[in-house]
């Protein structure tokens, strides 16, 4: 370890949470760090759609207004970033992915989430259904800010937060699990924070 710097405190670290709530290797923060691999997109809501596709075919699609008309839930979740910060008790509002996939009909084992700006991430369908994932458009009582993925992002809190794709525009149903953006560059295909599945080979 590097020599400790006199008087330098880890300011953003929040008090330790109760045991069992923070995965190994993580520390709790009070702010909400912004991480991005590219510029913040700004798709106008009138042009925004969310699609479920398969084999290049559109199975179902929603405009912003149509998404807003779907049954939405309030979610409180702990989120864990692979860069080792965790934020507890975050509040969201969004449409369960179950609702979207059921409307589209699906029989594939995997999805690839795709986003404005070209970001992608892969997940098993099992991990975005059964009440485990949402398309979230509100955060902390207000509209999701662009730097945090607004107008809407995928929210999959049980996996590392790079799987909660910002600026999500749809899910592509797939027969095989193919690596998305960070998975291609060496991150884990699944990303379970409780098993510290950060990088390929973990």
């Amino acid at each position, binding site marked *: *370890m*590097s*020599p*400790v*710097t*006199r*008087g*330098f*405190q*880890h*300011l*953003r*670290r929040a008090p330790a949470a109760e045991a069992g709530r923070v995965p190994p290797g993580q*520390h709790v923060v009070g*702010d909400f760090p912004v991480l991005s691999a590219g510029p913040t997109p700004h798709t106008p809501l009138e042009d925004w759609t969310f699609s479920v596709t398969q084999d290049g075919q559109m199975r179902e699609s929603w405009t912003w207004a149509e998404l807003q008309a779907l049954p939405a839930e309030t979610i409180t979740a702990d989120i864990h970033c692979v860069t080792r910060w965790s934020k507890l008790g975050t509040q969201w509002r969004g449409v369960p992915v179950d609702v979207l996939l059921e409307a589209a009909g699906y029989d594939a084992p995997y999805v690839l989430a795709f986003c404005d700006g070209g970001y992608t991430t892969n997940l098993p369908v099992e991990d975005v259904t059964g009440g485990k994932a949402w398309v979230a458009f509100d955060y902390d009582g207000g509209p999701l800010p662009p730097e945090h993925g607004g107008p809407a992002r995928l929210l999959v809190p049980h996996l590392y937060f790079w799987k909660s794709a910002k600026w999500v525009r749809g899910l592509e149903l797939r027969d095989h699990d193919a690596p998305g953006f960070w998975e291609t560059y060496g991150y884990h295909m699944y990303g379970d924070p409780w098993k510290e599945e950060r990088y390929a080979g973990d």
Partner: protein
Amino acid sequence: MERRAVRGRLTWQVATVTSVTQETGSVVTIALDPADWPGHRAGQHLDVRLTADDGYTAERSYSIASAPGEPVAITVERLEDGEVSPYLTEELRAGDKLELRGPIGGYFVWEPADGGPLMLLAGGSGVVPLRSILRHRRRTGSDVPARLLYSARTLPDVIYRGELDQDHDGAQVIYTLTRSQPPGWTGHTGRLDQALLAEAAWAGEANPLAFICGPTSFVETAAAGLVGLGYPPERVKTERFGATGGR
């Protein structure tokens, strides 16, 4: 152009802080005595690494404020939501040890042999590497024409003002104050724009060599503006800081 070799891998070393000098209300200059400093070029930077007692580390890059041949110094601005700058500007004191590595950079550097005329554009704390360039120009007795256009929020926010206001062998300094001006101010006001550049920058026909440093938005505006005045893009060198949190 003389180039200094990078000695193999860049390694972290410990430097003793020899002084911390207040430049403005939120800016300090930290003079350093590294264990093994190979010397530096005007415009280069160094990386600083801080380690908390829980093992958490934070790294930041800071431009070197001193000229080649002078003791190494960095100038740091306290950023409101900063994680590192509040420590460096308010807690650090002479006698402390700081981990650093450097010097770093081979693009945003100037030697007298590179010529000019030099057009330097500073946005806020972007003035730091440009001051190293101006000091190097002065210390080497270079007669390359030089002009600094320095955008700051207010006059008290101008870093190195006493030094800049002296006539340095013909280096001209032009300020623009963007947020407020002292009574009787006859200088420029408002953010950098094409009109100010047309008035204050060397003409494109002079084939100037430009160095622009500051927040990303300032650099983009300035670089586009100079190219718009006819500066060849390859003679417009840029170094961007983030809008928050420095580099």
